Each structure stands twice: as structure tokens, then as C-alpha cells.
């Protein structure tokens, strides 16, 4: 077997083991929460009779281990079950919500990743001069601003003062792509502002590291233009750490944007998960947790693989 294929296969199988461990952790975590799903559904209106009836109906009287394995085997067959709270199919609901989340993450990523890398390259080219300081200054201030503050500021400016966009980003089937893009403009802006600095700073730091090498000096002596040196000679050798940070941020865009979803009323996974956590809707919480874990692990495997491919020493091990 080709060493790279072997390496990738190793990583993927490790990822699967990790995912299994994550599913167990999620289940234990949910079990440890105070109260149970029947109490959470009925809330203040819980009576002894209705609690008993509901518990029986939901099968909550079975031992935890049985419920865990029942769920795991069904999930392996693609059946995530039905939500305890409203009886809707989880696979269907999660499918829609995940689609929305990926849609938002995709557009945020497609703007922020190239922008961050280009800004990083520019910052290196003019390091310690005003463009570098300006870029760092702006991106560091936007990352320091909590997401909801940035969200409210943009909302105030662009929806209340100047009615350019709508404050509510709800999207649904039947909207044209243009309408959808206009609806998500504000959350995309906020997410770009939030993830930009991390990736930009890492690009800058990684390239600056490489810039000390002898071969860069050679390139300079050859008379290449500074930007070409950075982009063609320095950047490829700095890809590994940059890819890792990019993947971390992409994962964040998928699993960590609940605050932005709430502020802009965006029907994504985060809000869906939080709603069901507060109602102890175990199957939904577990399904979401599993999907989030899969996204995280998947993106990290991808980062590893890209780092390996980008590094000749790892590509051709002795």
C-alpha cells in the first residue's frame, strides 16, 4: 500500500474510534444533567400523573446502557429516531438545519479564508510598516469584539439607520439564491469579522518564520519581487500551520455559531441543539453532538492529510 494511503487510512480509523468515544461522552454528559426529559417537556405544568404517563410513553424507564446501544445501532443504520418533544423525524429536521448551517458556513468561509490569507501575505510584505499594523489592528479589534456586539452594531447601522439589509436572516425553501444571500449578509459579515484575525495572524506568523530561511535569501538575491517570494516560495512551506488554523475556524463556523444564529434568527444547528438540550430531548442532543463531533474530527483529519501532502518530508518518508 502506498504510504500516504496507509497514513490516511490510519487517520480515518482513528477518527472513527474517536467518534465512538465522543458518542459515549455525549450520552454520559446528557445523563448527568439535572431533571429528565419528561419533567422538561411538561415544565411547570408537570403533575405526577402526566409525568408517569410521559415517562412510560418515552421509554425512559429502561436502563441507560440499553438506551445507549439501541440508539447507537439505529444511528449506524442512518435512523436518528424521532424527537421526543414534538415527534418530528430527527434526520429530516437535522438535514434542513445542517443544510442551513453549512450554507452560512460556506459563504462565510469562501469570503474569510482567501481574505485572511491575502491579508496575511500583505502583512508580511509590509511587516512592521503601516499596512501591517493597520491590518493587525483592525482584525484584532474585530476578534476582540463579542459576536453579539458586532451583530447588534451591524444590525443597528445596516437595518435600522440605513435599511440595506433585513435584521432577520430566516431562510427557507422557495427563496431564490439572491434572496437567501441578501438575508444572510449580516451574519456572514459578523462571522468573517470574527474568524479573520486568527487565520490572518497565523498566516503572517508562519510565513515570517519561513522568511528567515536561507532559500528566501537566495530568492531575494535572484532579484524576485518581494510579493512573489512570499507567495511562491515562502507560503507553500508555511501551509501546514495555516491549514490547521483554517480548519479550526471552519469547524467553528459549523458548530460554534449559536450566538450569531440567535441574534439574527437564523435557523441553524446551534439553535436547534440548544432548544433540545433545554428540553432534554436526548435523541436530538445525541444526534447533534454526534454530527458536530464528526464535523470536528473530519475537518481535523483533513487538516492532517493536507499538511502531509504539502510537506515533501512527510510525503516521502524514508
Amino acid at each position, binding site marked *: 500500500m502506498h504510504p500516504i494511503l496507509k497514513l490516511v487510512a490510519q487517520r480515518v480509523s482513528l477518527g472513527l474510534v474517536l467518534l465512538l468515544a465522543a458518542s459515549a461522552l455525549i450520552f454520559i454528559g446528557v445523563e448527568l444533567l439535572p*431533571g429528565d426529559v419528561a419533567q422538561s417537556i411538561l415544565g411547570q405544568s408537570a403533575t*405526577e400523573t*402526566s409525568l408517569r404517563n410521559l415517562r412510560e410513553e418515552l421509554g425512559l424507564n429502561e436502563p441507560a446502557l440499553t438506551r445507549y446501544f439501541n440508539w447507537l445501532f439505529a444511528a449506524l443504520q442512518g435512523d436518528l429516531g424521532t424527537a421526543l418533544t414534538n415527534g418530528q423525524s430527527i434526520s429530516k429536521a437535522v438535514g434542513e438545519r445542517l443544510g442551513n448551517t453549512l450554507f452560512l458556513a460556506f459563504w462565510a468561509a469562501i469570503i474569510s479564508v482567501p481574505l485572511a490569507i491575502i491579508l496575511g501575505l500583505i502583512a508580511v510584505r509590509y511587516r512592521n510598516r503601516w499596512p501591517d499594523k493597520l491590518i493587525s489592528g483592525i482584525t484584532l479589534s474585530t476578534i476582540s469584539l463579542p459576536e453579539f456586539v458586532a451583530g447588534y452594531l451591524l444590525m443597528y447601522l445596516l437595518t435600522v439607520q440605513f435599511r440595506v439589509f433585513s435584521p*432577520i436572516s430566516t431562510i427557507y425553501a422557495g427563496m431564490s439564491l439572491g434572496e437567501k444571500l441578501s438575508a444572510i449578509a449580516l451574519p456572514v459579515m459578523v462571522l468573517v469579522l470574527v474568524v479573520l484575525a486568527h487565520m490572518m495572524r497565523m498566516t503572517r506568523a508562519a510565513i515570517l518564520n519561513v522568511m528567515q530561511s536561507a532559500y528566501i535569501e537566495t530568492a531575494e538575491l535572484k532579484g524576485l519581487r518581494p510579493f512573489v517570494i512570499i507567495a511562491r516560495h515562502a507560503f507553500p512551506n508555511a501551509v501546514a500551520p495555516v491549514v490547521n488554523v483554517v480548519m479550526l475556524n471552519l469547524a467553528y463556523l459549523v458548530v460554534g455559531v449559536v450566538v450569531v444564529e440567535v441574534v439574527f434568527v437564523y435557523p441553524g444547528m446551534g439553535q436547534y441543539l440548544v432548544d433540545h438540550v433545554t428540553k432534554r430531548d436526548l435523541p436530538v442532543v445525541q444526534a447533534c453532538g454526534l454530527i458536530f463531533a464528526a464535523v470536528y474530527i473530519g475537518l481535523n483529519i483533513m487538516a492532517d492529510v493536507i499538511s502531509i501532502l504539502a510537506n515533501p518530508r512527510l510525503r516521502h518518508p524514508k
Partner: protein
Amino acid sequence: MNDELRYLLHRTAQGKHSRRAFLGRAGALGMSAAMANTLLAGAAQAQEPKKGGMIRMGMQGGESTNTLDPALAASEVPFAVNMTWGEMLTDVDADGNLDLRIAEEVSSSPDAKTWMFKIRKGVEFHNGKTVTAEDVLATMQRHSDENSQSGALGIVQGIESMKAEGDMFTVTLESPNADLPYLMGDYHLIIQPNGGKDDPAAGIGAGPYKVVVNEPGVRHGFEKHANYWDDRIGHADQTEILVINDTTARVAALQAGQVHMINRVDPKVYGLLKKAPGILVHATPGRGHYVFIMHCTAAPFDNNDLRMALKLAINRQELVDKVLGGLGSVGNDFPINSAYPLFDDTIPQREYDPEQAAFYYKKSGHDGSPIILRTASGAFPGAVEAAQLYQQTASAAGIPLEIKREPDDGYWSDVWNVQPFCASYWGGRPVQDQMYSTAYLSTAEWNDTKFSNEKFDSLLIAARAELDNAKRKAMYSEMAHILRDEGGLICPMFNDFVEGVSETIAGWRSDPNGELMNGRAHVKCWLA
């Protein structure tokens, strides 16, 4: 008519100015009161409902876990959603009168034990079927089933037998209840085809709008039910409820014109939003109240002197001013206020009195150890701050309160109705009997103060059978006195519903029954 007067007239007709303020201004501008009154009547009549268009409401209180099954409705969005597509036998109007919906006539036997509801002719479900007495019977059966999780179980449990004959639905109660027609207007008791036994969450009812979109926690879309029987409501062609749980986003959506009405305006932004162009902010006194509850059976609260000390140690007006931003009224340690029919307004108001509180505290012989008050930010908006203010005023009376902050998560299962002293809230009920029966009858499941008083219980049961309103009022007054002086309830304040409404909306009327005109603002208002 000069411009100022015309402007005022317009604003008064819209409800932005009070009638009295208008008459005062008109007088100042040299117009006789009679003439001004005539003018006003004309302007109000010109408010003929306009048909068509789309009304959007932005609401807090919806989750992706919501269902259309009316039996399970508990929070604000499902409530308003169900009021859009469903209808009960009866309803309560803004003045507290019975509003007959699917029932056309209500009559009872003289002892108020047997009640007859005549079903309105020609009312149609969204699936095309006609509403029959059998559907009504099936609905009540579903809700009274021991296995149901219906929030109305407590109401229908007292039914001994029911039957449907022709267009007549007859209920026989175990014990008399003069309020039964009101109880049939409980928002869970929406009439569904075959009682919803086939598919309780189908969203098929006989209400003014049909469900078109149902995305729980995101949005609910409706279009007019063409064969709806009552053309006094349901003016817009379409209506939509958007779930906007974030307070700031909700206000922004209203300001940007994306929604016409929002609920739960934060008292902190009330003053600012009022000044915003094109928006009216309504504060409606309701029956909901924020409370601190003591278990009358648990030490040290089993001592009435200590309970009295704690009741006297709270500064009600300060809580109304600081926690509600002045948008509410002080409570009097019983759960009833002037928004209820048969309210006795001569009951003396309990005031903050540190000296009396200290006197009762000493008399109770409490050992001086801190009294633990449990609270959570989700107990009611501002519950943590309210507890802190309470702690201060109590310590001025020499009563040591220790605040224990609990997580919102699990508060209603692990703290409320479990711990002996905690913060909570009640949403109020249409009539006094229902409020008292739900939470203060010694046998009630939600008797969250563990209050038990024979006199109180017997008065409550007797009042149900009393059809003479004057006698009934006297009974309720006596019960209020008992609860106020001996109960475990500390009721510092009744909160207003604070709502933002666009000026493009006409037909708004304050309704003490519930927020957003009792969940029907989008059904009863129209686009001006």
C-alpha cells in the same frame, strides 16, 4: 378644523392618545365638549376594518421543540399559533365577558351542575368537514384521558359525564361550577376533527387561518380559511409568526418594518422605543404576577408570624419601579387583581413596614439563622435582582435572607414546588375560581405554597355553585383576606404586557387576558 386638532383626532382614534387627553386639548382649542365627542365618534367609526394583506408578528417564546398539538401548548408562540388555526367552544373578550365561538348558546341547570352547549351551525374545519357535537365530545374525551398530557386535564377532570346529541353538547359535573363556560375557553381545548384522536398535531381546526408553514422555532405561516364563519375577525389574507427569541433582534425587526408587532419589549428600552418613529408601544395591565412562594408546611415557614414578617419586609413599589421599570402594579399577597371579574378593591394594600416586620419576626421566635431564598434568572425576568432588593429591605427589618442562585436548567423540576422558599411566576387565569383552584385549593396538584385552610376550601367550592354575583364577590373577598393574611404567597407585583406595534396596524385593543391581545392580535387587527 385646525391641523393640530386633526392630528390629535387621528392619534386618539388610533389609540395613541387617551380620549380624555383629546377632549382636554380640544377644549383648550376652543371646542365644546359635545362637539369634540361627536368628532371623536366619527373618527373611530372611520376605522372600518380593511381586508387583505399580510400581518407578521415577531415573538419570543418559541422553540424548535414545539408541536401543534394543542394539549401540549405551554409557551407563547405555540399559544398564539394555536389561536390562529384553532377555536374553542368559548372565549373571553377583552372586557372579561364570555365570547361565544363554536358554541352558539350556553345554558345550565339551575344548580350549575349540568351545562348545555349548542354547537354553531355551518362551522367548517380546514379539511372541509363540518364541526359537530361529536367532534366536541371527542376533543373533551381526549383531554380528559388519564393518559393524556393535556395542560387542561385539571379542568376536564371534574366532568362526571358528557354526551353529544344532535347539535347539543352536554356536560354533567361532579360538583357545580358556575364558571364552566369560561373554563371551556381554556386554550388547550381547541376543537379538532374527531377530537384530534387521529393526529393531534395535524393543525387542522376551525379557526380563521389554515396552517401553511410549520417550522417550529423558526416560523409559522397561515392563510385565510375561506369558509370561516365570523367576518368580524381574520382581516388579513395571510399572517405569519416569526420566532425571534432575542430581544434586541425583535425590536430591530419591528423598527426595520420586517414585522408589524412584537411581544415582550424589555422595560429598559420602553422609553426609547416609544420615541421611535412609526411605532406604538402598549403596556397592558394583565393578570400575570411575579411571586416568592413559601411552603406553609415546611419549617420555618410553617409559622404564620414568620410568613407575615416576610410579607411585611418586601418593598413592593420599589420592585415595580426597578424590576418592572414602572410597567406593572403592586400586588397584595393574593393572586387576584382588578383585571379579574368580581375583584374586591376595598381590601387594604399591604405596605413595606420594617418595624412591623421586625415585630413579627421576633414574635415568630426564629433562631436568627439566614433564611434561604432560591431564585434563578429564568424564574421571572429580573428575579435575581428582585431577590437582591428583597434581601436589602428584609435586612433593614433585621431579617437575614440568604440568596441561593439556581441554574435556569431544571428550575421548574428541582426547585419550584420542591424547595420551601423560591421565586416563581404565574400567568393568571380568566376567572378567580380557576386561579384559586389551580394553586391554592389544599388538594390542588400545583398548590405550590402547600396552603391548606378548610374555610378557604369550603368557600371556594361554595362559590362555584353560587350564581348570585354579589354573594360570590363577597366569598371571593373573604378568601382573598384569608390568603393574604395566612397564605404562603408573597405577591409583590403584577406585570404589564409590553408590546410594540407598527403604526400601519389598526384595530389594536388592550386585552388583560394575555399578551398580544391574548394571542390574537394578528387575527383581530388589520393593515390600515
